[in-house]
């Protein structure tokens, strides 16, 4: 779908990020020659660049400035220093966003998606998640299927969002609960069970049967395996 360029000299990290981004259906290029970054940039013509601040020869800020001379392609800085000065400098140097190591996959995903959407999607498009015809509206927390539109509670929405973001992969109960906690909802085991049961009942009412499957002992899954 999109072409993403990663300028990171720690190969293992770059490779891990590459796997993730390729998993979302994008084409990824890893820069290996840190003296001729510009050449690679022109060849590959990426939609988005992930660049580490600490690099051999020249640092990330330098490359960003160079890239900005010829292009306004979105740039996300990666760094292990997350203190404010670094973030300010990154933005002042023409960066669009900043992510601190070690980062959460969800955060990386969210930032990349947000920037791609902001830069390349047409105005007016609503952020959604889709599976089997069911459309989850990320703005107003509703689920639409065929003609019906369901209002979801915050908990139900978060659970469904997490499941759909990881469609085709099993999501453990712990992960779901952690996601709710991170939204200041300190649920316990049985609360989660209750929420999922209620959610299932709700979506069954609009005709989606067996949308959320249980994998005993492991968690829940949405979509084909």
């Amino acid at each position, binding site marked *: 779908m999109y072409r993403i360029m990663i300028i990171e000299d*720690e190969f*293992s*990290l770059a490779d*891990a*990020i590459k*796997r*993730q981004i390729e998993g979302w259906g994008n084409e990824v290029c890893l820069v290996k020659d840190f003296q001729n970054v510009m050449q690679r940039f022109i060849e590959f013509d990426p939609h988005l660049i992930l660049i580490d601040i*600490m690099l051999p020869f020249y640092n990330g800020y330098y490359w960003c400035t160079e890239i900005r001379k010829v292009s306004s392609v979105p740039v996300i800085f990666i760094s*292990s*220093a997350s203190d404010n000065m670094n973030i300010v400098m990154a933005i002042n140097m023409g960066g669009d966003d900043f992510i601190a*190591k*070690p*980062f*959460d*996959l969800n955060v990386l995903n969210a930032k990349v998606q947000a920037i791609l959407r902001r830069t390349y999607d047409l105005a007016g498009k609503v952020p959604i998640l889709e599976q089997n015809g069911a459309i989850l509206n990320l703005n107003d927390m509703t689920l639409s299927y065929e003609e019906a539109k369901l209002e979801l509670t915050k908990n139900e929405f978060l659970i469904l969002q997490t499941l759909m973001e*990881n469609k085709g*992969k*099993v*999501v*453990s109960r*712990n*992960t779901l*609960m*952690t996601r709710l*906690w*991170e939204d*200041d909802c*300190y649920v*316990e*085991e049985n609360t989660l069970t209750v929420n999922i049961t209620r959610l299932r009942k709700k979506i069954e009412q609009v005709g989606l049967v067996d949308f959320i499957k249980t994998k005993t002992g*492991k*968690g829940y899954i949405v979509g084909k395996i």
Partner: protein
Amino acid sequence: MGNTSIWRDNNKRQGKNMAKEIKEYGEKRNTKVSIIRVFACYLRQYRFTIFMYIIFILIFRGVFCLYQVEKEAVFYGTVLYFLLLLIVLPMHFIHYYLKHKELFELKGRSYLEVKQIPDAKGLIENDYRELLLEWVENTVKEKSRLRIYKEDSIEFYSTWVHQIKTPIAVMKLWLQEEDTEENGRLLLELSRIEQYADMVLSYFRLDATAKDLVIREYSLDEIIRSCIRRHASWFVTKGISVRYEKTDLKVLTDKKWLTFMIEQILSNAIKYTDEGSITIRAEEGPFLYIEDTGIGIAKEDLPRIFEKGFTGYNGRADKKSTGIGLYLVKRTVDLLGTPVNVQSSPGQGTAFSIDLRKNYMELE
């Protein structure tokens, strides 16, 4: 383990004795320079001269007597001499007194500049002065060396922390690919490694002075919620619930350090609680309470939990702690001025309380 605690107790005792001596010396030393005392010292210092002078008078009076010199001549000479003395003596004494005062007032300074040391008169005074100058120079060099060493250390550890975050990031990405229980547990341990790495930087930053703090008004609830969020996966994996009573308080403090303090205490609470809940609430004061239903702390250990490197003793295998977290809490207390208190009953739980009385802002 038993041996190290005896060693620590001995050092403490020595330290206490020394402190007592210094205090007594300080009390003996007057803060004011009393003229009478100085005059007494003056007389004592020049007693040799005075003594020789008295001998001189006695010898000459004796000789004049024996030679039957005119009493008037002797008397006249003596009077003249005493008049001279009356003029010269006070001048000499005042000079002496002023010099003493100057030197006396230089005492107790933490920093002495070379040009502040008064001039020396005479060989002996000069010897002392030069000795003093040598030592002042040594101190300056030593201070400078220590400062450079410390800056080097901070730089080294900062780099180290940044380096170690990369493999942690890689591992996180790999583990997040498949959401299994094992991966979840591994991810949890990874974030603990990350937490310890961050503690290294906090340790160095704790040497900050008050002027490095950024004091603003913050919502205490927001700070608490961010701390809970950061520990969410630990809570969930251990199956501990949280009881959070909204405080609706505003505090005037440095957000970074207060967050750090609450996080460390929360970390400690989760670490030592296997089941049950952790309660976060505020009480009249205000005091912020973080209470757990964990294994608790023995009474003998309570006063020592904030010591650097204290790991609990008596071979209780379940009491493992590197003694860093709570030590850093204590240092943060000194920095922020928010005393922390602990109460605990083994087997029932522990309650930490943060005294926010100095940081409290009245609600509008």
